[in-house]
């Protein structure tokens, strides 16, 4: 297999894996449905998402 074919194959496998994992997770947690307001600013709710800074 030449380099270009390998490159395309690895890219395809990567994106298929990403989509499959997201789909599996979405299916597995389908009972949980949360819908925050579209914009945090003006929502009247305190920010509560997880962040790298440790919150």
């Amino acid at each position, binding site marked *: 297999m030449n*380099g270009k074919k*390998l*490159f395309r194959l*690895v*890219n395809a496998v*990567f*994106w298929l894996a*990403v989509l499959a*994992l*997201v789909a*599996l*997770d*979405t299916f597995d*947690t*389908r009972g*949980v449905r*949360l*819908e*925050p*307001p*579209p*914009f*945090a*600013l*003006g*929502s*009247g*709710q*305190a*920010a*509560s*998402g*997880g*962040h*790298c*800074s*440790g*919150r």
Partner: protein
Amino acid sequence: MPWFFRLLLIAGGLAGVLAVAYAAGVRQGLLTLLGIGFGAVLQGARFGFTTGWRDFIEHRDPQGLWAQMLLMVLAAAVSLPLIAGSGGELVGAVAPLTISLVLGAFLFGAAMQLADGCGSGTLYKAGAGAPLSFAVLPTFALGSFVGASHQPGWIALGGLPAVDLLAWGWPTALALTVAGCGLVAWLAGRAQAQSAASQPAASPTPTPQDAAQQVMRAGTASFVPAAETARAGSRWARRWWLGALLLAALYGLHLIVAGQPWGIVYGIGVWGAKIASALGWSPVGDPFWGVEPHATRLAEPLLADITSVTNLGLLYGALAASRWNGPADFRLPSNRRLIAACVAGLVMGYSSRMAFGCNVGAYLGGIASASLHGWVWFALAFAGSIIGVRIRRRIGS
């Protein structure tokens, strides 16, 4: 038919945004769209935090550092008044000055040079198809997951409490942030001038080595002309300042939509924890993943997590930008380089949790939030990068 391919790329992105909005709400859809913007700008402008630092360390080229400081100033100018006036709806990235921050930032700075990308760099290069970043991403996720689990233990080692300059009012906080960024930019320019004075002028035309290095850096094609390999002594390349402007705009929008600054490694850690859960690991009793709000993040769909959806969007945005002008170019790294990058990815993931984030969550987010930990992170990570660049030279490409 490049227009048809471009249309497909745009349609693919919009379909993804709509799918996320349908599955997890309008906010998550908007964040995916912003993530696509982040990825497109990072890849399109080749806005690398790692590369910017390396260019300065190796060639005294300050352009990347200048762009980063411009980004910090603009992001702070947008976010500080918003955070101060939001009444808690918006929060900054504020963290304590712990021993773990010092150790973690130093390790991260060294590792990111070996992995050829920080948190955002690894993601956008993986999205664009860079083979090295494909290899780094899984170990980064594992390191981030384990590092998060150990984070409470590292914090318990002690340190100083968080210093939030916003407590003195946003005008003062912004003035101090601008002064800090200005000082760094001035020092970088001065170092360049001193270096130029002691060396013969650089060649005005890019050498084959420059071109090869450019391909290695990007991993793929981009809509930035390859000839734009500005070296020390030349003008400030457009890609740098334009990238900073666009990233600052996206950063502000992200804060308004998400309520928190742009982050990367938290989401990657969640991915690692989700995979570990699927393999039988239980977060119950874990000092990090077993407590709120992280336990809820694990129980909720991945698409409900803020950093996860921006990360996914970023991957796609980088893919779209790298294929905008046709098929991507690439170069396979040596096995030695690949193994070193995988180990570096593991270290990077782990240390980013010790240090409260990567270049985006701690460096950009911290400084733009007027938190002192962002400056400490910068100093230590830059020192680590000096070591990392030396190790990288020994390993080769």
